[in-house]
């Protein structure tokens, strides 16, 4: 097998070690490789921010070789739960690593001073960058771009103030418009004193001889661009989901106090965003679909004169749910203004919006007051939310420091846990039913992307616990295979297991192609072993009351079924983790 090539950067000394691991190739790449490396580097007995804990960035065997094989998996110890966590991002991250000649970049240790890591095919350095500390995530990248060569062929991953302050809501911004978003990877980087990682991809790789590879590439490219399969992502993008989910009574509004708002959805639809705020599109490197939708924010900054500034902000379904419907902000440009603030602060948009929604309801109920917040929070009050985002990122005042730890953490201090919309971390935007709530609450990444549970709910299946658990386990295995290659999950209908085997064979990795079903199951189990090794008990997860009060098109939640499904899935996770020795 081709060895996996890993660059291990020691942040405390500024030195690096190149490792070639033939045996690690069996873990494919991405999720599988990250979990495998995590098992070697991470320390279950130490805190999440211990210097020895690794941050791992891994790509897969197909990265760059085929379209939409364009994502990178970041694995780290989460400040939210203290265990194995993954967050995935695109942008140029994956191709930059590929052309830097690396399958994975592993950061260990803690830099003595705020620093920037720069890695390339023929370069590695850890440079002092104290002047960047405290700078917003967008401005800091402008300076780094000026300092580094390789425009277009580099990827810059950086944190904002939220990461420096080690908030579990801190993300890593990737190339301005993409993110390693969830579970606090920005804090993991901040805890290492790393403001940014820049990867320059300046080398090339050999390709197989003969016509087979190029022909397969062309076939897949055609499937991705000429057929209807990807039209949704190409056209309105993921915001296309807003209107249908609202019609289904499955779109969270006002801290999940409602699941539909027929009067307001007209201004919050994907079409309305496109008509009023869409500036242009962009793509991850290696993806011809170009699902990135970039809107604009235009602000008059001198009230008496016609002086404006404008900013470009990428938008998707999830940020619109979190900073729009969840906060009852109904004007696209106002949602984008909030999103711009979140970007600069380096917060995860979903967590920030859901946490603010909790704080707003807590204030409505009198659990917290302006004496705590210094602001009057009210649903739809964009101006107050803009200020709140800055305060939360900077952990200014006691209340905002608590909220920056998560809505559930703040509720532990002030009360209101019943309506903290937290399922492992702040919820994703799907009030579709029991299967989704259980999937996010227990899922390995506590993400809507762990399984297709939101689609499962929407198919309106009978309440069959065994069938639902079977779906969750089998769908996760398929997704683990994709995130080990590392494919964009939007391409999951194109990259069937058979197609993936064809792709591996076409680039001379036949040895990996033949056993994909078994490999998927092994990697699925390995990830769960890592999650449980740090103390996660799936049986101990609780789902806040707010989720049991939800009413969708199918009627009220069935609390008995919810509890039964939760228990059954927890047992299935334990069984998965026990399948092979850790």
């Amino acid at each position: 097998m081709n060895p996996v090539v890993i660059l291990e950067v020691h942040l405390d000394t500024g030195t690096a070690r190149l490792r070639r691991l033939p045996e690690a190739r069996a873990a494919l790449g991405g999720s599988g490789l990250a979990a495998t490396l995590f098992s070697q580097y991470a320390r279950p007995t130490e805190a999440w921010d211990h210097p020895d804990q690794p941050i791992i960035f891994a790509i897969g065997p197909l990265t760059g070789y085929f379209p939409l094989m364009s994502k990178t998996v970041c694995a780290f110890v989460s400040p939210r739960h203290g265990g194995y966590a993954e967050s995935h991002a695109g942008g140029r991250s994956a191709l930059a690593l590929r052309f830097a000649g690396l399958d994975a970049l592993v950061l260990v240790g803690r830099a003595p001073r705020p620093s920037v890591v720069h890695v390339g095919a023929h370069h590695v350095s850890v440079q002092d960058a104290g002047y960047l500390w405290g700078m917003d995530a967008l401005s800091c990248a402008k300076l780094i771009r000026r300092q580094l060569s390789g425009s277009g062929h580099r990827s810059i991953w950086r944190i904002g103030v939220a990461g420096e302050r080690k908030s579990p809501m801190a993300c890593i911004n990737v190339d301005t418009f993409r993110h390693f978003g969830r579970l606090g990877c920005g804090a993991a980087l901040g805890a290492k004193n790393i403001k940014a990682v820049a990867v320059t991809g300046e080398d090339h790789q050999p390709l197989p001889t003969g016509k087979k590879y190029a022909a397969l590439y062309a076939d897949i490219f055609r499937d991705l661009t000429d057929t209807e399969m990807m039209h949704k992502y190409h056209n309105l993008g993921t915001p296309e989901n807003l209107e249908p989910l609202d019609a289904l009574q499955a779109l969270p509004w006002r801290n999940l106090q409602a699941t539909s708002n027929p009067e307001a959805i007209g201004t919050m639809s994907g079409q309305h965003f496109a008509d009023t705020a869409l500036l242009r599109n962009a793509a991850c490197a290696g993806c011809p679909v170009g699902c990135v939708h970039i809107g604009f924010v235009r602000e008059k900054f001198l009230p008496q004169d016609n002086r404006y500034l404008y900013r470009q902000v990428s938008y998707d379904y999830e940020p619109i749910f979190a900073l729009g419907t969840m906060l009852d902000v109904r004007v696209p440009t106002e949602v984008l203004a909030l999103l711009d603030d979140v970007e600069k602060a380096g917060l995860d948009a979903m967590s920030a919006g859901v946490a603010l929604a909790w704080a707003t309801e807590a204030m409505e109920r009198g659990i917290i007051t302006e004496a705590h917040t210094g602001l009057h929070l009210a649903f739809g009050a964009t101006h107050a939310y803009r200020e709140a985002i800055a305060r939360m990122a900077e952990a200014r005042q006691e209340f905002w420091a608590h909220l920056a730890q998560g809505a559930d953490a703040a509720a532990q201090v002030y009360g209101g846990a019943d309506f903290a919309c937290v399922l492992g971390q702040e919820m994703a935007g799907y009030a579709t039913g029991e299967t989704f709530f259980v999937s996010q609450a227990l899922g390995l990444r506590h993400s809507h992307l762990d399984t297709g549970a939101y689609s499962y709910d929407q198919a309106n299946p009978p309440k069959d616990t065994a069938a639902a658990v079977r779906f969750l386990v089998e769908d996760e295995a398929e997704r683990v295979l994709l995130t080990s290659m590392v494919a964009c999950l939007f391409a999951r209908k194109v990259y069937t297991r058979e197609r993936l085997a064809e792709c591996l064979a076409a680039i001379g990795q036949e040895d990996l192609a033949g056993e994909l079903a078994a490999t998927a199951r092994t990697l699925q189990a390995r990830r769960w072993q890592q999650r449980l090794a740090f103390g996660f008990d799936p049986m101990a997860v609780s789902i806040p009351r707010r989720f049991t009060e939800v009413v969708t098109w199918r009627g009220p939640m069935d609390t008995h079924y919810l509890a039964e499904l939760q228990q059954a899935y927890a047992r299935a996770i334990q069984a998965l983790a026990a399948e092979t020795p850790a």
Partner: protein
Amino acid sequence: MKRLVAARMDRCIGCHSCSLACARLVHKLLSWEHAGIRISSSGGLTTGFQAEVCLACDPPPCAAACPTGSLKARPGGGVVRNKNLCIQCGQCVPACPVGAIAQDRAGDIYVCIHCGQCVPFCPHDCLELAEVES
């Protein structure tokens, strides 16, 4: 005579499919850099994208700078390249006024040969193979 023209770069989404196609089909490499057409942003992704590609100068200054005749003027502009004659001196690289020629660490050079194999891989129709008088 055909000539590749990056006619609608304001539509470009930065997917690099053109560069990857050139590297894959012309140079038999996996690369976004070692290709006859390369995409860069002009200072961050908010500023849009530009193509580093041969503008088909006639006469081409890169051919004039080539001491061995590896690059020769092509009818209709640009150059034809005889790889066997290239001594990897790299003099063509600075001779190009628009930075369209790349050189890798081994000394190999990459310049657009106006074959058009990248064109069908552009999802936004930024590129075209135009007919020019030779």
